[in-house]
């Protein structure tokens, strides 16, 4: 489904340049303006023990007109350069989205097309990187979730596991599900041959809050009963409630980092973890 946003009245007054100006003056992101985005990637205990780099990566930015972009990626297991793959993929996707909005503006923009383009571009950049490093494309294997937010509407482009969960009218909803695989150690990455067949585009509106996360947080936030994924209220409700009330975005980011490296989360998954929250409505 295409999300036509060209008919939506642009009501956001601030732009990235203005926000950057505030930041350089040491002024925090104005929290009365949405979306508010914060989160991080952290290394998992198993990689820390083995002295392996964090293979998760995330990048998020606020663009003009109150557009928010979040991209997360999970570099695959023992693949030697998957940390590079994940970092390259998130940066490429964010850059592509910025380029599209910079050249075409928001008028006539279709969020679904934009996230799709961003995923295609990330794949292209990985191919170039593999040539540059003279390694196999598979050595850069990673998943990707690209999220574009405009007002209370989002579009998601997704390959692999991890998920996007949103709060809509006081109910939790999975906007983008983990890719289907029977076994816990299997996934189709962005670098696979038939990656484009596995690209899933989804979207939703009337969103209050959303969370974008990699596989390392999947067991904490989702339950799979009778083959159906369900978001877990015990996990998301307190986090979304907290997100709506934050006073300082730097502290909020640190709170997320502390959560991800906590014993409770580490015990649940020894993998690297990425968790990014966006508040779309105050």
């Amino acid at each position, binding site marked *: 489904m295409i999300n036509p946003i060209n008919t939506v009245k642009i009501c956001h007054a601030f732009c990235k340049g203005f926000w950057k100006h505030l930041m350089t003056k040491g002024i925090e992101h104005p929290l009365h303006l949405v979306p508010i985005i914060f989160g991080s990637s952290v290394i998992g205990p*198993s990689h820390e023990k083995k002295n392996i780099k964090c293979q998760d990566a995330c990048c998020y930015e606020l663009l003009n007109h109150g557009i928010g972009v979040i991209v997360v990626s999970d570099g695959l*297991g023992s693949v030697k350069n998957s940390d590079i793959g994940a970092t390259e993929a998130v940066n490429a996707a964010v850059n592509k989205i910025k380029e599209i909005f910079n050249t075409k503006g928001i008028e006539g923009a279709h969020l679904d097309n934009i996230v799709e383009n961003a995923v295609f571009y990330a794949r292209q950049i990985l191919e170039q990187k593999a040539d540059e490093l003279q390694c196999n494309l598979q050595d850069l294997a990673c998943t990707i979730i690209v999220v574009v937010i405009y007002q209370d509407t989002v579009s998601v482009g997704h390959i692999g596991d991890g998920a996007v969960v949103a709060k809509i009218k006081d109910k939790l909803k999975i906007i983008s599900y983990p890719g289907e695989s029977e076994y816990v150690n299997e996934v189709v990455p962005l670098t696979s041959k038939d990656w484009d067949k596995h690209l899933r585009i989804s979207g939703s509106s009337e969103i209050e809050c959303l969370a974008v996360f990699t596989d390392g947080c999947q067991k904490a936030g989702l339950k799979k009963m009778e083959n159906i994924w369900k978001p877990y209220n015990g996990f998301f409700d307190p986090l979304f409630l907290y997100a709506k009330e934050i006073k300082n975005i730097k502290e909020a980011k640190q709170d997320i980092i502390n959560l991800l490296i906590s014993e409770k989360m580490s015990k649940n998954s020894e993998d690297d973890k990425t968790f990014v929250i966006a508040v779309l409505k105050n």
Partner: protein
Amino acid sequence: MTDLAKIIDIANPEESKVAVVLLLDNSGSMSENDKINQLNKGLKTFKEDIIENDLARKRVEVAIITFGDEVKIIHDFSSIEQFEPPYLKTDGLTPMGDAILKAFELIEERKEKYRKSGINYYRPWIFMITDGEPTDMEPGDKQWETIKKLVHIGEEEKKFLFFSVAVNPANMEILNELSLPDRPPVKLKITKFKELFKWLSDSLISVSSSKVGEQVALPSIGWAEISI
């Protein structure tokens, strides 16, 4: 600062599981050359090794089916801590076909249980040790075709991993035909049961600690007569 770990609950605190069915030949011929005693000792080694590893202890689940006088589930799936290595006795023929069929059923039931309970799982293992040839089927008959198809399709569709280990004087030709070309049967040196079970526990330890997308390299086989 807010301690978010204190305010959240975890959706799925269960460990992911790797299920292994040991399919063990306890036909009369296994009493020769101390084979059954070595097999019994090997089962104890297997438990001791798995239990020593923190992750594997929580993740490996084992079941045992014997085939000799009859096909019998002598130990249904349990955690390794609840697994009491049995003392196997020998008797009877080699109803390998029915035993493999039973292993398929057990694996499918276990997967269904995992799915219903929302437990993540790895691809299950069927690990067969035999010193003979099937007495309930032969190449070309209906049972043979059914079993061979189940093994081959099961492997191709990634329903399980099927390993077969041949102890002298097992019929290698038949086992070769039953197995997939890229996972052929391996002939065990008669005195290397302990090493065989050590390899099995090390392999399961590697698998149970693997993460998404990880290609698991199994340890090299030091217990085989011929390295394949």
